[in-house]
């Protein structure tokens, strides 16, 4: 936000307090609460720029748009406060964010009180579109259950009968490994051990030694970012890669293949996105994102792109009138998004109903080799709107 708009927002705040109605031609304010510093900074950057790209491509839905960015620092204790800052001080009409599940919990809680439309472009915390679902809460990414669930079937179909799961001991890790266990055991396999390591500890050696001792038919893990780089390398270094197939939620090899090098070669993961998808939207998106930012696109950028598409489409439907929250929510709920991942609709709990791809890591790419689960919908336990 510029200094001028900051002053303007203060003026608007004063006007609102004294009961003055806001002018009609005020730009629609989109509050973007993403990490721009710290571990998740690159994710925040990619999401933001891809979202702005999608909005620009659709002429901002024909509306006058202003973005107000706020660094969420991925710090959960400031989550609720930062959300209120955007809603109350900066008077945003639509809120976008965050990356981190803990921050998402705080934001969800605030918008359930205020009614502000919230679009989650990454955080997979399942509750946001399950127990805590609300008419004004949407997600353009995934629920933690979604990309992990098909892995169980994949592992079973490839001959595994026993498996060990391992993840960081936090919400996303539990939700993902439980989803794997759910489908693996439904198919007839047995999860013999569920291992956890405190987040964000990356000393995996003791647990790898345990796994080597158990000798299961398969290992399923949930790690992302730096932890994923380290785990995949350690798994290889420990000599386990040749003997026990490793499966994972696609984040294991997403955006980190360069750093993982040969250790990742041949790994099978499941995710709602992949390299080598044969669709024109994806080809266009990758080219446009690279042209706009000079960086290669990734799954996070793709989610940001769809966030932009969702907002633009909804704004077109309501003709830039964001005052009618019900109409805006309805427009988002019924949107069909021509996504680079393939076309998808929102489920009744406002989470994408999407294909989950089976991908193989080859030469620094997560190449699609199959659809592991077509049009997979998170059953969203506990959601009632």
């Amino acid at each position: 936000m510029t200094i001028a708009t900051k002053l303007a927002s203060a003026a608007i705040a004063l006007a609102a307090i004294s009961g003055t109605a806001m002018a009609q031609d005020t730009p629609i304010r989109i509050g973007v609460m993403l990490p721009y510093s710290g571990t998740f900074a690159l994710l925040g950057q990619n999401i933001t720029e891809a979202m702005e790209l999608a909005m620009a491509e659709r002429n901002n839905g024909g509306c006058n748009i202003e973005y107000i960015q706020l660094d969420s620092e991925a710090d959960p204790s400031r989550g609720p406060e930062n959300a209120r800052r955007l809603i109350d001080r900066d008077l945003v009409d639509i809120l976008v964010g965050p990356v981190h599940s803990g921050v998402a919990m705080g934001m969800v809680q605030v918008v359930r009180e205020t009614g502000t439309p919230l679009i989650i472009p990454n955080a997979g915390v399942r509750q946001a579109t399950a127990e805590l679902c609300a008419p004004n809460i949407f997600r353009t990414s995934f629920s933690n259950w979604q990309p992990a669930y098909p892995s169980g079937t994949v592992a079973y179909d490839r001959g595994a009968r026993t498996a060990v799961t391992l993840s960081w001991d936090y919400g996303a890790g539990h939700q993902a490994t439980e989803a794997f266990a759910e489908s693996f055991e439904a198919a007839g396999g047995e999860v013999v051990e569920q291992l956890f390591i405190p987040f964000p500890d990356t000393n995996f050696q003791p647990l790898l030694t345990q796994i080597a001792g158990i000798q299961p038919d398969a290992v399923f893990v949930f790690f992302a970012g730096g932890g994923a780089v380290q785990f995949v390398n350690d798994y290889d270094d420990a000599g386990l890669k040749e003997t026990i197939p490793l499966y994972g939620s696609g984040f294991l090899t997403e955006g980190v293949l360069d750093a993982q090098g040969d250790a990742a070669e041949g790994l099978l993961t499941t995710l709602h996105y992949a390299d080598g998808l044969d669709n024109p939207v994806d080809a266009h998106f990758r080219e446009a994102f690279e042209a706009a930012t000079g960086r290669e696109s990734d799954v996070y950028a793709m989610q940001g792109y769809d966030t932009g598409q969702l907002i633009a489409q909804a704004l077109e439907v309501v003709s830039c009138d964001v005052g009618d929250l019900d109409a805006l929510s309805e427009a988002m709920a019924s949107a069909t998004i021509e996504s680079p991942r393939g076309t998808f609709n929102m489920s009744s709990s406002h989470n994408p109903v999407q294909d989950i791809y089976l991908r193989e890591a080859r030469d620094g790419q997560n190449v699609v080799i199959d659809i592991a689960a077509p049009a997979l919908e998170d059953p969203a336990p506990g959601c009632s709107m």
Partner: protein
Amino acid sequence: MIGATTTDNGANGLVRLFLLVGLAVFALFPLVGSTFYVQLGTKVMVFAILAMSLNLLVGFTGLVSLGHAAFFGIAAYSVYFFTPGFTAASVWWTLPAAVGLAGLAALVIGALSLRTKGIFFLMVTLAFGQMVFFLFHDTPIGGSPDGVYVNAVPTFDALGIDLPELRDRYQLIEGGARAPFTLYYVTLACMLAVYAFLAVLLRSLFGHVIQGIRVNEHRMRALGYPVYGYKLASFVIAGLLGGLAGYLWAVQSLFVNPELAGWHMSAEILLMVILGGMGTIYGPILGALALEALRELAEIAIEYGVTASNAIGLTEMDPHRAATDYYLLVEGVVIIAIVIVLPRGLSGLIEDLAAYLRSGRRSAKSEAEQAT
């Protein structure tokens, strides 16, 4: 002002005037502030209580603790423990229970930590703070490392008298502005009560003994005071008051997470104490207020700076983006600058200013006397 380095009564009068004006500003603020700023004000006061409690240790007992956030976190989590479902519990038992738990933890941690001194004490309190952090982070006690919701606000009913809800229901500004008044004023009352309590405490024999310990522990021991007991009592009182802040935090945000007890939080409280100045009771209030203001100002300063450097062709950056990108850098530089330039903090500055004004008046008066 007890603990203030100056004993000059005239200067004290000016400081007192400053404090009264400050109180009036706090009291009247919700009438003009928007919802967000009223909530921010509540948060500032919560941190002010927390920083005042730490100042009892750092500024008056001479114990530098880097684990004070533990007591804040324990009381905040207590609110979650006491309202596991959606049924609200009464303030009248949850508040004492939460504060009591924090005090109990302070008793245990203090009893062990106070076996050590100086640098060891600092490190040991840091480690105990981390222990509490991991207790909430890794074990089932804390619920989830991502943090947990408090689903119901403690009720504030006394003897059947219908008091307003502690945490006013949130309403959209368009739907008729109503700032969350009740909690703001409850927090303000708590802050004043803590201030008054500390003022009385520090004037008592106990207060004189702990301040004596800060200056010269050996002398106090030689005089026959049970130094360990006094230090432990001070540590527990600080823990109890820190717990009060934690309780208010949980009620305000209805979301608690392990980071509340982590060492980054402890360092921030210490920063508030230093920024405000540890020689006075009111210093930490200024510190909490200034740190929050600093965040806002740093952002604006970066925007101006980048706009200016763009204008002369030095850089090509989006000013607001730069503000979100570089504010930690600015915060780091400011912290170091404060440590170097303002070792006695803002209250030191105010005391000096008051002393200067008075001496200026006095010298003006004496000049006039000489002229006649």
